[in-house]
Structure formats: C-alpha cells, structure tokens
C-alpha cells in the first residue's frame, strides 16, 4: 500500500462520510427502518470484494473463508434489498395519500388482515 493510494482512499472516505451525513439527515423518521435495511444491503457490497478474493483463493483455508464471505454477502444483499422493497411498498400503497383528515369516504372497517 503506497502513500498516494492511501491518500486517495482517505479522500474518498472523508468526502463520502460528509455526503452520507448530508443526504441521510434528510430522511424522515418514518422511513428509518427501511433506511437501515437499505443501507444494510449497500454494505453487502463487500460481496464485490469477496468475489475478488474468492477468485484468487488457492488453498484450503482461503477457499473456506472466501466461500463463507460469499454466502454472507449474498444473503445480505439479496435479503436486504428485497425486504426493504417489501416495507416501502406498504408505505406506498396508501388508501388516500392526502391523509385521513376528513376520512368520511373511507370504508369503515376495511382493515386488511394480511
């Protein structure tokens, strides 16, 4: 690892943290659970790194470590995005997006038991 690579990575790291704070501060509390599961799938990007290592593994221990890393990261990404979508879909499927302030036109007892 040479100094210029290190500094490049550090620059990206610092800027990404600042950007992350800026963008994520605007997410409303209502969406904090989907935010967490969504960012959880983003960090499943370790899968990318795992692919690189899995491709170069050349001994027993490295095979095992690479395989476990692939399984972990795969579960993380697929499961994370899927469950986030499942949650956000519930937020989207609104009966009346304007809220129930008047509510008179709504079915009285139409609670969907899913």
């Amino acid at each position, binding site marked *: *690892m*040479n100094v210029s690579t290190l500094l490049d*990575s550090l620059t*990206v*790291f610092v800027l*990404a*943290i600042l*950007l992350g*704070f800026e*963008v*994520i501060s605007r997410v*409303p*509390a*209502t969406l*904090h*659970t989907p*935010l*967490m*599961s969504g*960012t*959880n799938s*983003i960090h*499943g*990007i*370790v*899968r990318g*790194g795992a692919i*690189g290592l*899995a*491709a*170069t593994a050349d*001994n027993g221990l*490295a*095979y095992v*470590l690479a395989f*476990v*890393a*692939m*399984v*972990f990261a*795969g*579960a993380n*990404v*697929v*499961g*994370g*995005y899927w*469950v*986030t979508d499942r*949650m956000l879909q519930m937020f*989207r*499927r609104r009966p009346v997006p304007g*809220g*129930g302030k008047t*509510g008179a036109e*709504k*079915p*009285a007892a*139409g*609670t969907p038991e899913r």
Partner: protein
Amino acid sequence: MDSTNIGYLVQLAFIVGAALFVLGLHLMNSPATARSGNRLSATGMVIAVLAEVLLVAENGVQPINWVIIVVGLVVGGGVGLRLARTVAMTSMPQLVSLFNAVGGGAAALLALNDFVALNGQRVLAGGAPGLDGWRTFFILADVLIGSITFTGSLIASAKLMGLIRGRPILIPGGRIITWATIVVGLSVSIVLILAGAGAVTYDSGVLSILLAIGLACALIFGITMVLPIGGADMPVVISLLNAFTGTAVSMAGFVVGNVMLVVAGALVGASGAILTRLMANAMNRSIANIIVGGFGAGEGSQTELSGVGGTVREVSVDDAAIQLAYASKVIIVPGYGLAVAQAQHGVRELASLLEARGIEVSYAIHPVAGRMPGHMNVLLAEANVPYPQLREMEEVNPEFERTDVALVVGANDVTNPSARADRSSPIYGMPILDVDRAKSIIVVKRSMGRGYAGIDNPLYANPKTGMFFADAKKGLQDLVTAVKAL
C-alpha cells in the same frame, strides 16, 4: 479490449454504482419516492457486482474459484430471499441485526483472507518494504470492528428473538472481561502493526497466533458489550452496530484497495452514526451510558405502582368508546406493547371508524417506540395507516393541547410527565410526548405494571386520565365493537 481498458471500464462502473447508491439514499427523503430510491440502489449494486465479475474473469479464474463464487452467491442469495419474504414486520429488528452480523462478518473475513494470503507469502514476517504497516492497520481495524459487529449483532438478534432474555444480563466479572479484551486486543494489534511495518520481526506462525488472539478478543468483546444492554435500548444498539458494520466495510475497502467499498461503508457508517445519535438523544442518555448498560428493570417487570400519589380512575369500554366517538380530534400514541400484542390492525380499524364519524385522527410516534429506529411506522404502515397520519414527536407535541382524547396503547415511559417536571426522576430530561396536555387521556394497559425504566408514571393518576385495563388487542376489539354500537 485489453486488460487496461477493462480496468478503466470497471472503475467507471464503480463510480456509477456509488452514484446510484447516493441518489437512492437521496430519494429516501420522502415515502413517495423511497421505493424507486431502493431500486436505484439495487441497480447500482448489480452494476458493481457485474463489474467485479468482469474484472476477476479478465484476470483468469480457476474452475474451483468459479464454483466457490457461484455456489456461495446462490446459497447466500437464496437464504436472504427466503428470510426477506417470510419475515414478519414485528421481527424486522432481528432481521436487520442478522444482516448486520453477516455484513460485519463478511468484511472481517475479507481482511482475514488478506492477512492469511500476505502472511503466507511471508510479506509480514519478513518485515515488508514500504507501507505495509498501514495495510496491517486497516486489516486489524476491519477484523476487530467486523468481529465485534458479528457477535454483537448475533447477541442483539438473539435477544430480540427471545432466545436470550431481553432484560439486561450482568455476567459476574463481565466488566473485567470487557476491559481485558480491550487491553489484550489493542496490545496484540500494536505488535502486529509494528511487525507489518517491519519494526519488529516475528515468525509468520507467531503472527497468525497473535491475530487469532486479537480476533478472539473482538468476538468476546462483542458478546460482553451487548449482553448487559436491555431490550428497550435495542434501537441504539442496532444503530451503533450498523455504524460499526459501515466502518468495517470501509476498512475492508482500504485493505483490498476498492474505492467502491470505501464509499459504501462510509455511507452506511454515516447512516448508523446519525441514527445512533438520534436514538440516544430521544432517550436523553449518552451512548456510553447505554453501552455500560444494566439500565431499568427490563420489560415484563410487574412491580405494582406505589408512589403514584392520588387515585387512579378506571373507565369502562363503553365510557371510553363514547369519549372517543364524540371527540373532534384524537391522537393515538402507540408503543411497543402494541406491537407485542399484534394490535396494530385493531388500532387501524378503530381509527377508520372514528374517521368515518368525521373525527381527525393521527398517530404520535416517539423516536424510540419499537425495537429499532422507525419500527412503529413500519408496523402501522403494514396495518394500512396512511403515512401522512404518522407524526413525529416535535411536530405533534404542540397539537396535544387542542386534542380531545389522547389514546395511549402500549406506551409508558415515553408519556411520563416526570421526564419534564421531576428532577429526581431517572428519565428526567428525556423528550416525551406531551400526552398529559390533551383534554382527556385514555390509557389502554394490561395492569398497573411499570414500563421499561421501572418507574411510576404520574400520568395514570392525572384526573384527566381514564385507565382502560385490557390486553391491547382484545381491548381495541372491544372498543371497535362499542363504537360501532353507538
């Protein structure tokens, strides 16, 4: 195309992927656009993974390595998909914790793998030229933080699933173990970094043992850190572990020289840090205080109230129904008890009935209601509550004075006026929902048991308050029936 061009192409794809992550997060700023944001982010992930595959394919991959990659992805993806499709919304905190654990674990494994490879080449043992002290530093940061996240998240998940008692568990000598792991872990790390930098020389076997000791310390530390933390503090713990995972992934990016990992990890770390701070503020406790743990008697403590002062007024289901049906503005205050009783659908049904009578209904959601940030909102969204009715604490608090009935279901400490008034109270200073400022209050509660903090709630003795003793689900059904009959 020659391999340099492939390299450039992959770099470009990584930039596109990172940009899509950021844009996706940006779209999460409103429930209306959040779903497309998540898909954008997923698209970025697909691009990044394809680029990575292209890159490794270019460098030549042995058949066995392809098998590891493909089988690993299919098995992992299948497990993740199955979990994601079947999990109940009440179990989201467990699932997020589990994903946290695997994310941290995968990041740690990346660095471990790197260490094994380097150590095998005796790069470390021989006192590597150049800056391999830095590389060792990032490897260690990744391995240690990733391992702490791994065991910590597993314990948190087990607590949330009820496999381990939710209440604080204090192991005898737990604090000594924690400190021992910190001291030993850090000492080992320093030796390893010095070895990596070439300042000291050890046999590669010794270095492996040292790393194994550090790894063990981190794994134990993760366990002893989370065990003493009580169930209701879980929102903070989950957020904090999320921040840890992000950091570990970033460190992994430094180790393997992948900028995409650095960016993704930084975004997750920022998100975890923001949520941790929000949750800690909402409980008016420092993060350190929560980690030290042992706070509160834990849920399920059925100690009877003693020092409420004044008498408690009980209301019948019919009285409560009349009060609600003839109000013009009702705010429902849901707490975790509501989720435990699976009563969110009952709440929604009652709200629909009231709305049909022209009553304005909204939901006041405390930041720590539920077991993870925003959990209550998801549960209510699942019960088909329109999200504009889900109101945040700061926004809804001024409205209580104009509210005819505040209906408290399964919430306790977050409505306790002692937090505002009583300097001697353990929760003094904690931001609460100003339920006591409503014109009248109905509390649906199983018994006079205390909340998580294990303290009395003067709200119950307030002359404006009527206590409706019932299980949340059953009580709400009775209320629905009673309102219908009016």
